């Protein structure tokens, strides 16, 4: 399988503290990769480096390479905005724009960029909402506030907003940690469908979730990559004892 995304000796510092140490990973196209590990191990930090979210934190320093289709997104000539158009992100807590309607939230990636093709708007909204299986629940109230939706619906709306701009990679930072089991199940089904079109990287606290949704799993501990392999192998026959200790619940 050809790799869509590649981390090459990634190091991330915040001031003097090093949060991520020399991580190299390969994400094949149209697969779901889970990044697991105990709190503070650098999972989210790695994820956020993939669409240059650390650019906003003055103290953060990213070295090494992040290759998207073999081109380094940290290259000086690359515009972080262009990177983020190709690599979308779904956050831990659903964060629809509170001042916007459901409709406007889905189309916000276009509207905020000021490049809306009016004729296509309805189509984009409908297809994006259908893709996240939210269309039937909200089609009669598209023009109402997004804040009236339930937590799970809001999170699916955020995913719809992300897929609406047609990225190539979708990053998910513990997308279900604030949701109940039924909403979680819906999102997990969705992730499975998303990989037909996108390359998905998901950070999760929940090991069962990683086992259910992912093709590959990376285990991070104290900022270092301990093990990366096919998910099944990680959960049934891990090569490292630390991985085994973590997945069997001995620490973390």
């Amino acid at each position, binding site marked *: 399988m050809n790799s869509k995304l590649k981390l090459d000796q990634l190091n991330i510092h915040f001031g003097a503290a090093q949060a991520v140490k020399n991580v190299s990973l390969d994400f094949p196209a149209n697969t779901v990769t889970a990044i697991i590990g105990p709190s503070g191990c650098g999972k989210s930090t790695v994820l956020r480096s993939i*669409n240059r*979210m650390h650019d*906003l934190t*003055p103290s953060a320093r990213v070295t090494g390479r992040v290759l998207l289709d073999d081109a380094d997104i940290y290259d000086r000539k690359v515009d972080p*905005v*262009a990177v*983020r*158009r*190709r690599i*979308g*992100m779904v*956050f831990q*807590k659903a*964060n*629809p*724009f*509170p*001042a916007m309607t459901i409709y406007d939230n889905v189309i*916000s*990636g276009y509207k*905020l*960029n*000021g490049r809306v093709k009016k004729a296509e708007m309805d189509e984009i909204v409908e297809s994006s909402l259908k893709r996240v299986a939210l269309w039937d629940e909200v089609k009669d109230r598209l023009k109402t506030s997004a804040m009236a939706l339930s937590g799970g619906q809001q999170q699916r709306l*955020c995913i719809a*907003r*992300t897929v609406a*701009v047609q990225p190539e990679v979708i990053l998910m930072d513990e997308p279900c940690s604030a949701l109940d089991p039924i909403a979680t199940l819906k999102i997990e089904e969705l992730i499975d469908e998303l990989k037909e079109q996108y390359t998905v990287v998901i950070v999760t606290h929940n090991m069962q979730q990683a086992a259910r949704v992912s093709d590959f799993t990376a285990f991070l501990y104290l900022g270092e990559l301990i093990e990366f392999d096919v998910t099944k192998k990680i959960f049934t026959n891990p090569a490292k004892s630390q991985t085994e200790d973590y997945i069997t619940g001995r620490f973390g």
Partner: protein
Amino acid sequence: MITYALRRRLTNHLMTILMVGAALAVMAPLGIIFVHILKMGASSLSMDFFTQIPKPTGESGGGMANGLAGSALMIGLASCFGLPIGILGAVYLTEFGGTRFATAIRFSADVLAGIPSIITGMVAYTLLVVPMKGFSALAGAVALALIMIPIVLRTTEEQLKMVPGTLREASLALGVPFWRTSLKVTLVSARSGIITGVLLSIARIAGETAPLLFTALGNQFWSRKLTEPMAAIPLQIFNFAISPYEDWHRLAWAGALVLVVIMFTLNLTARYFGRNRH
């Protein structure tokens, strides 16, 4: 033991009474002012007040139509100068606020807000009235804008700081450039709070007299040019109240009533917008 409990209850009652008294003392001046102005002003208020300009000395009747128009115009112009500077300055402070330069701006704004308004008037006089060789509405508007800017800057900054970072990240992750995110997501999310601050700053400058004394000067007639002296409600109240004529005094009371009602309305509207945010 009984005396101890009794003493404690008495102390409790005493303190409660003191605090209720203090709370009433806060409200009393407002009540007294409003009742008195209503009593003195209502009888002099008529349609003429809103449609006529002041009559020459000795003639009865007349109104403050030119003052109302002048106030509205100068406040509008001051808003054109002051709101963009104040709001965009606040965006700068929130988005790039960690620097020493930003701290200096914040400090300057706080000091500027504390400067007596008569001094602001003198500054506008030196900067505009002297070089332009005459009092003008423009100079008045600039003086009002100078008072408005620090208020708008600081209230807007407070509101922008309350916008959760997750919204900013959501927008950036959609490939929206930083500047568009600041203007279209952060600013829009804080809009009701910003409107509140803007209305309060307008209420503040609507009643300012001192900065207009050296700048707009006042005018007994309609003024059609921004480069000419212009009437304003607070100025007319001031001039009429210190005049020796009884019917001018009555007009001043009517003006005071109108001004206070405008302030009340602005404050209540501001509260409405402030309350709207959950």
